[in-house]
């Protein structure tokens, strides 16, 4: 009993690993913007069907790290990534791996809802069409409907699929973006502050959705809202000045963080 308490954290980790396989992992990942090192060697395992939240003050590198996971940093000319990032054990920065395929496996939802200025239907249908996932119109309709259903948007938009996606409310737009990401059947969904532009009600709808989705997807979410991290995530990673300071079960991080920087941040002493 005694020893169990002492090694509480580690035991939990082992138990979790027994339940979930490692979906993505990072080993000594560094990101440079020009000569500036933004991330100083991150090591992390992301387990399957788990929600992991990245928290930390602005500029701590949490979004940068998130963008390493589907190589969105590639789109920035000056960014350079070193180290190893794997998806199901395969190096995603390997030359033989096509970034397009990776992004079909690792979807992304952005800070500001960014539906295409097209119809709701077209927003969802774009991805499956792009990747040739459907053979005919009926399959496509099915994918659109199921994606919208999973995102909890179907009942609200089923009568106006031809209406522009940009005409929806902010929360609906963000769910549309989630549905769009789901439509290409990714394994991992990355969310970069998905609720920062939304009101509290829309936020809790998205949070509820995240909870439902984690049965089928692995989700990594960057958030500025610590309460949100506490609410939705299984694991929480605290980043500070380009370092991963602490990664632990969310229940531990928010009641008994091990690092004083983590404690100071989540209790509102800096940040």
């Amino acid at each position, binding site marked *: 009993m005694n020893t169990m308490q002492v090694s509480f954290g580690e035991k939990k980790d082992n138990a979790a690993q027994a339940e979930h396989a490692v979906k993505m992992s990072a080993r000594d990942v560094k990101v440079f913007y020009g000569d500036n090192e933004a991330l100083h060697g991150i090591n992390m395992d992301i387990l399957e069907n788990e929600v992991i939240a990245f928290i930390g003050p602005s500029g701590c590198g949490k979004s940068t790290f998130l963008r390493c996971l589907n190589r969105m940093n590639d789109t920035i000319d000056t960014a350079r990534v070193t180290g190893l990032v794997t998806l199901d054990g395969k190096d995603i920065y390997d030359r033989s791996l096509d970034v397009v395929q990776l*992004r079909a496996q690792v979807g992304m939802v952005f800070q500001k809802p960014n539906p*295409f*200025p097209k119809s709701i239907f077209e927003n969802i249908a774009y991805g499956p069409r792009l990747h040739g996932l459907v053979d005919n119109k009926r399959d496509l309709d099915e994918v659109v409907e199921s994606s919208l259903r999973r995102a909890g948007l179907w009942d609200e938009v089923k009568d106006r699929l031809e209406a522009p996606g940009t005409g929806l409310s902010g929360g609906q737009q963000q769910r549309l973006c989630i549905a769009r*990401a789901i439509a290409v059947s990714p394994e991992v969904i990355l969310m970069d502050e998905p609720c920062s532009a939304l009101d509290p009600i829309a936020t809790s709808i998205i949070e509820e959705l995240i909870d439902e989705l984690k049965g089928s997807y692995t989700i990594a979410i960057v958030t500025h809202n610590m309460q949100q991290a506490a609410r939705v995530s299984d694991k929480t990673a605290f980043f500070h000045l380009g370092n991963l300071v602490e990664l632990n079960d969310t229940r531990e991080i928010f009641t008994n963080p091990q690092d004083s920087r983590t404690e100071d941040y989540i209790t509102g002493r800096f940040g």
Partner: protein
Amino acid sequence: MTPSDSEQTKTQQPDLMDLAQKRDLMQQRVAASLKRRHASEKRFRLYGMAAVTVALSFVAILFITILSKGLPAFWQATLTLDVYFDPEIIEIDEKPVRQPGESDGAFQQRMLAWQTDLGFVNFNRIILNSLAEVLPEAPRYQRDAMRLVTSGERFGLRQLVEDNPAIVGQTLRLKLLADANVDVWLKGNIDRSLPDSQQQLSARTRAWADELAERGIIRNQFSTALFMNADSRSSLASAGLAGAFMGSLMMMLIVMFLAVPVGVASAIYLEEFAPKNRLTDLIEVNINNLAAVPSIVFGLLGASVFILWFKLPLSAPIVGGLVLSLMTLPTVIIATRSTLKAIPPSIRQAALGIGASKVQSVFHHVLPLAIPGILTGSILGVAQALGEAAPLLLIGMSSFVASVPGSPFDQSTALPVQIYLWQGNELRNFFEARTSAAIIVLLALMISLNALAIWLRRHFETRW
């Protein structure tokens, strides 16, 4: 925090009385400064309105002068006469008809001979005879009478006969353009009190013009010559814009099909695909500089490259079009790039995040959104090219060309150059109005291009 700290924070709070007094003082100060601030705001608004008024009044003056000067030129003094195509004067054979089995060359030769015969016919006498019908004195003062009708009309009559030889022997009621000086005289564009020695027309011609105008034989009629004819120096009254208009049209088409696709394509490459390095920075700086290069320099470039090196013909719309394309290219590139820059990056990220390739994200999402802006920029660039005269002067387009170009390789002039040429014509009294008329045509063309740009923008934008 220790208890002493919290006490400190309490003592930091200023005395409530002090605070109230301070607030009162502040309110007074604010109230005092309010007047000054409102006054300066009002003043600024007045300055702005004054500036806008000045600008608008200049535009108004410009339009009023141009319209008041130019509009009368669309109506020209025209004689309506019964013209008898006298077979005794027009002594020619039947118009040759192609015989079966005749070779091309042989037929052409016969045709040419017939046309030469026709060329020897004295159509002036036919005009004179027609004039004699209304002015019995005309045959006696042939010179004075012939000054009434512009010299180009004899070619008009010849063309009629050539087109349809059957009219020989018939009398047709025709409209003949009056001479430019008659037009000037009747419109009062010359001081009627000047002595004979300073008048362009003889006293008799002037009297006849007045008489015919009174009798309704000379009337102001809408001038088709202005639109149908090319420039002319021998028959000033029939000088028209057709040649310049066609030249400008061809150049515009060349610019549209050359500068716009090339400019848009390079802008897309530079903005979306090119790596950001020294070389692309250098290119960007140069494009911006190029946009600021005086247009006449492009003319110099065109003269040395297209004419001296590529041996393209002088004064041809093809050369003008190429030069104007070069000049428009930076404008189109800059306009397109700024439009692309304005497309929110979130759209690109959304596409990339789903797994679209770079090209797909640009062509499926960015470009459709950018089209209204690109169109507007391009059309404004083309409109700017349309109004440009300086570079065209250097590639020989300022020369007098009396024919309408049939292809971009024919000699031609352009609308702005035509305006420049007419402005310098020695018969100022007649060409001042003609010049303004040409400016009106050019402005109308520009305004309709801009309207097209606005319409296109609206059309594409309201889709979403």
